[in-house]
C-alpha cells in the first residue's frame, strides 16, 4: 500500500489547499506571514474557522481591496485586511495571551529548518552580520496547540530542510507537529518523524532526499 497521494510534487497553492482541508471545523488559527497566508484562500465557510492576527484581532477577514483599505486595520504582515462579523479587537498583551496561553488550535508557519523531533528554526539565519528580528514567531511556535510548518522540502542546493538537528538558531524546541512540503507531509514529535504522504515520489525516493528518514518506516496508510 503506497502513501503517495499525488503523482507530482504539490505547488504552493495545492499545498495551501491541503493544509486548509486538514484544519478541523471551528478552529482558531493564526497564519504566519508569507506562504501560510495562502491557506486562507482555501478555508470554506462551512469550516467556520476564526483567524487571529497577533496585532490584536480575532475574526480577521480577507485582504482589503481598494475601497476597503483602512490604515487602522492591518494584519501581522502589515497588509490591510478586513473584519468579519463576530470579530473582536484587543491590545497586544491580551492578543499574545491568546497565543501564549495555548488557546489557538493551530498556527501555520514558514521555516528554514525543522528537526525530526519538531524543533523549529524560522527567524534567523545565524549569519554574523544579519540583523536579527523575531516578531511573534517564538510565541506562536511555543503557544499554539498544533504548529504546522509549510516549506519546500529542499533548499536551492538540494539539502533537506527536515533535519536531525537544526543548524540555524531555534525558534522553539519540540513545537512543530506537522510539516507540509511540496514532496511530502511529515508528522513530528517527541518520538521523531513519520511520513504521512508523499507527492510525486515514493517513500524510498523521499528517504534518499531526507537523511533523517534513513531508518524510518512509512506510516501505515489511513493512520491519519
Amino acid at each position, binding site marked *: 500500500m503506497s502513501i503517495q497521494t499525488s503523482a507530482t510534487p504539490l505547488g504552493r497553492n495545492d499545498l495551501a489547499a491541503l493544509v486548509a482541508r486538514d484544519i478541523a471545523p471551528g478552529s482558531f488559527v493564526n497564519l504566519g506571514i508569507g506562504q501560510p497566508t495562502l491557506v486562507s484562500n482555501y478555508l470554506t465557510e462551512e469550516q467556520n474557522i476564526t483567524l487571529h492576527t497577533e496585532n490584536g484581532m*480575532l475574526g480577521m477577514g480577507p485582504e482589503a481591496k481598494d475601497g476597503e483599505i483602512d490604515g487602522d486595520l492591518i494584519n501581522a504582515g502589515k497588509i490591510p485586511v478586513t473584519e468579519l*462579523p*463576530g470579530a473582536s479587537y484587543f491590545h497586544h498583551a491580551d492578543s499574545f495571551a491568546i497565543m501564549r*496561553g495555548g*488557546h489557538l488550535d493551530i498556527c501555520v508557519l514558514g521555516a528554514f529548518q525543522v528537526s525530526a523531533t519538531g524543533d523549529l528554526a524560522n527567524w534567523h539565519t545565524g549569519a554574523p552580520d544579519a540583523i536579527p528580528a523575531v516578531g511573534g514567531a517564538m510565541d506562536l511556535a511555543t503557544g499554539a496547540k498544533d504548529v504546522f510548518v509549510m516549506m519546500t522540502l529542499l533548499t536551492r542546493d538540494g539539502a533537506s530542510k527536515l533535519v536531525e538537528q537544526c543548524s540555524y538558531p531555534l525558534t522553539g524546541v519540540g513545537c512543530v507537529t506537522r510539516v507540509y512540503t511540496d514532496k511530502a507531509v511529515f508528522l513530528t514529535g517527541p518520538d521523531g518523524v513519520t511520513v504521512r504522504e508523499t507527492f510525486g515520489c515514493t517513500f524510498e525516493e523521499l528517504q534518499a532526499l531526507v537523511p533523517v528518514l534513513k531508518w524510518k518506516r512509512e506510516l501505515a496508510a489511513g493512520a491519519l
Partner: protein
Amino acid sequence: MLEFIDTVGEAVAAVKDGSTVMIGGFGNAGQPFELIDALLDSGATDLTVVNNNAGQGDQGLALLIKEGRVRKMICSFPRQSDSWHFDAKFKAGEIELELVPQGNLAERIRAAGAGIGGFFTPTGYGTMLAEGKETRIIDGRGQVFETPIHADVALIKALKADGKGNLVYRKTARNFGPIMAAAAKHTIVQVSEIVPTGALDPENVVTPGIYVNSIVKVA
C-alpha cells in the same frame, strides 16, 4: 467547539468529580446562580472551587459546601457574616482552604490564561501568606513567587453573547468573568441575551469567543 446549550443542567455536565471549578462573581454581582444550582443538582463532588468568597447564606456555593461537595476552597475572603456553612466545615476540618490575597488570586488566574509559569509580586511579602513560598528582592522590594491557577471548568455570568461566543458584561458584574474564562479548559457562560453575530461592536467585546465553550441563556 462552541455550543449553545438549552439547559443549565446539560451545560454543567462538563464538571466531573474531582474537577477544579472556577466560579465567577464578587458578592452577588456576576454570580452564575443558575449554573451553581445546576452544579448542586448534578451531584459532582470532591471539587476544588475557586471563587472570591466561600459562599453566603443558604444558597449557591454555600449549599455546595454544606453538602460536602467541596474538598478545597481557593479564595480571598471566606469569612463573612453569613458564611456559616463554610465556617462550620472549616472548623470541623472538613474543607481545605487556600487563602490568597485578592490581587494574587486575580493575577494567578490571569497567568493561567496567559500561559505564564509563575510571577513575582510584592503583595504578601513579609506576611504569613508568604510562608513557605519562594521570595526574592527585586529592585529593592521583597517579592513572593506565585503560580498560575488553572481550572477544568469555569462557570461565569455575562450579559450578552453573540453567535461566535463573544461576551459583554454589565458594570461590576464583570469582575472575575473574563480572566476565569481564559484560565479554564472548559468555560460555561450563562447569559441574559443571545444576539446575532455582528450585533456586538468588535471594539467592545470583552471576552472573545475563543475562551468560551458553552453558552446557556437563563431567563
